[in-house]
């Protein structure tokens, strides 16, 4: 049994400590924000925040988040920051198939928490662990840039 804070609530997972965090989130807690794109830490589709930092939940054992704070898209999507990102992603045309997007949003949030006014280079770097096959990235980069500008003070 492992206790941690998931999207603002203290919870207890019944799964064994070596279970992949991704399986706990999707299987035990029914969250669909984190996706599995590779299962090997290469694509970022499963990205979540652990104590505010970006983690690939597919290669994070449950035991590693004991006592920590885990945030998935579900725990972020009611925030002001999310609403702004949602608008900027729409205005930039940053979403195609959408499969990479929950991970991209969490990566964007992790980046903006760290660097509220990132340069283009910093955004590219911040999102470089998240693969997207549809968009060619540039429209996602624009969206994040737009959010950083408009969200002055939010992050």
């Amino acid at each position, binding site marked *: 049994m492992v206790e941690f804070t998931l999207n603002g609530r203290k919870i207890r997972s019944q799964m064994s400590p070596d279970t992949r965090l991704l399986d706990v989130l999707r299987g035990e807690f029914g969250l669909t*924000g984190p996706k599995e794109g590779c299962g090997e830490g290469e694509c970022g589709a499963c990205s979540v925040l652990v104590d505010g930092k970006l983690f690939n939940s597919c290669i994070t054992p449950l035991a590693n988040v004991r006592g920590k704070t885990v945030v998935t898209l579900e725990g972020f999507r009611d925030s002001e920051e999310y609403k702004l990102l*949602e608008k900027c992603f729409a205005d930039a*045309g940053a*979403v195609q*198939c959408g*499969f990479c997007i929950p991970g991209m949003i969490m990566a964007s949030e992790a980046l903006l928490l760290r660097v509220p006014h990132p340069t283009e280079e910093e955004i590219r770097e911040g999102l470089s662990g998240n693969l997207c*096959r549809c968009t*060619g990235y540039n429209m996602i*980069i624009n969206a994040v840039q737009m959010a950083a500008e408009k969200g002055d003070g939010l992050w």
Partner: protein
Amino acid sequence: MKDISVPVEKKDHRMKMSGRAEYTADMKLPGMLYSSFVRSEVPHALIKDIKLPELPDGYFSVSGSDIPNNHCACITDEQPVFADKEVMFVGEAILLICGPDEKTVKKLCAETEVIYEELPAVVSLDEATEVALGYEYHKGDTETAFNNADKVISETFRTGYQEQAYIETQSAVGVWDKDKGKAILYGSMQCPYYVHSALMHSFELDESHVRVVQEVTGGGFGGKEDFPSLLGCQAVAAARKSGHPVRIILNRREDMSVTTKRHPAILKYDAALDKEGHITGLRADIRMDSGAYPGLTSVVMQRTLLAALGVYKIDNLDVKGRAMTTNLVNNGAYRGFGAPQAFFAIETLMNHIADKLGVSPLSYRQMHFVKQGDETGTGGKFWHHVPIPEMIEKAEEMSDYSRKYAEYARPQSGRYRKGIGMSIFFHGCGFTGSAEKDFIKSKLTLHKYADDRVEILASNTDMGQGLKTTFSKIAAKVLDIPYEQIIIENPDTDRVPNSGPTVASRSLMIDGKLIERAAERLKAIWEPGKEQEIMEQYKEDRECVPWDIEKFHGDAYPTFSWGLNVVELQEDTLTGNTDLLGVWGVYDVGHVIDERIMEGQAQGGILQGIGYGSMEHMEAFKGRIRQNSFTDYMIPTAMDTVNNGIAFIDNLYKDGPFGAKGAGELTLVGAAPAYEAAVEQASGRHFMEIPLTPERILLAE
């Protein structure tokens, strides 16, 4: 009134952003079982025996004997749903084991032992001798052209596999409705009615006893054109046997190893030149790896051959293609569908000839461009305006191509060297030949509800390309009602007529036109507050030279979309690494239905094309795909791209809705040769093969 091309928020934006969109892996059905495959470990063998471990209660093993007709229908039906007597490639499915616990299912698969009697296997295109299929066409008198040639230039090009690498792997959930004797399949797919006919064929069911529902699909790019039919049959077979819904999700390595890819090809070209350097005759002899089962190879190859002479008018032609049978994974559809191989070859050939003649590649191309009214290689006609001159003008303005070309052509020294390359290309819009009229016969419906909302009922899928939005915009614009008043759901074959597959850049041009027509008719009879319905069907009334596949003659496409790419880069001569400095794309896709969506198509397509030309290296070794993960098969990341310059040339096509033509595939087709040309200028060398990885660049030094 605003032009239709003014962007709107996509229909599915919020749902996808917020993680609420339901992809196949997010589905939960009561009693649903997990599954895993036992797959062939060898490229070619007879199956002598299968030793299954004892299956606990509630676990099932599913094989070909569980399927009334163990053949998967896709153009032909040679491929079994599960290999029963003989395996033809590594990774071919032999059994599916399903049950309530995922780990147990995997363990049972690992414990299953298949006894093979190995047979000789053909594990590379080079050694293949069996021709699966082939086509050829001829024009003029090549022999005389070559006899009278001032110079003959011969080159052989090679292109590798390319993996679609959609981020959502292939997935399906099969259900068997025992009471009705009905097969139901949910999944990630491009073509619900392809899956529908495959299920009818394999389970010997009539139309009304098969239902296929597309779930939100995480990218396709051709990879979910035919493969979901096979997966669908496998899932339904398991559901039928177990009496439970069965979910199949391929893991990434499995997906990369066993799903269809872009055909590797060897393209041999001979060009006859006159004194001024004009190409007077061209011979192209193209070999492609068809894999173990041909699948879509025939239609892919047709497109390759039709693209073999590029955007040039060449009067004497011998074009020949053969697809070779190997004991390798099947190849199939990938955005561009056979054209990227041919455009890489012809565009690179043009650059090499120009270089040998000491003229600039652009001025050399200018001696050969086709224009409206010219005959195509197969005796059809370029019926519509060919906007190459405007595209070049636009590209020069954005990229300063000619000035930079001249600058980088001067001798360079030092570790970092620059180059710039251009490619010009087309994409034949829609299906090759007469398929639209003879086989697809697309139908769709507009249904108006009493509350005056209008639903589009069509089988076309949105896999990220924005079809729900563009379709809705067309209907809303014609009906003159708010875009929010249009409903469009993921297709369910119980609800939607067959408006054809979502392939070949056909949906918007062909079915979008049907929506436009249906909406005009609905508008004419519109009665507020009343439920009304309009059905519209494809008809062909344009002027054309009828396509004859036997003679490979006539108009293969109703029209063409046109593209131009420029790539500028810097090469590190020590490591062979390149840094992109600029990438530009100019496209004619008729009239753009949504500027932002179209820009997304261009951005994404270009990067897939650059990946194809530069880093996406995949090969089979002893019959096994070597690079089957994102660690080994590298696709571009956000660090590998620059801010592309994109522009569109407005060139209305009267048979498309609001003047639109095919768009999705075009954007990938020309990036690889432009990239290669830039590397060639920077390095001062000619290359004959893509992907042009840093290793290959260095090896040539």
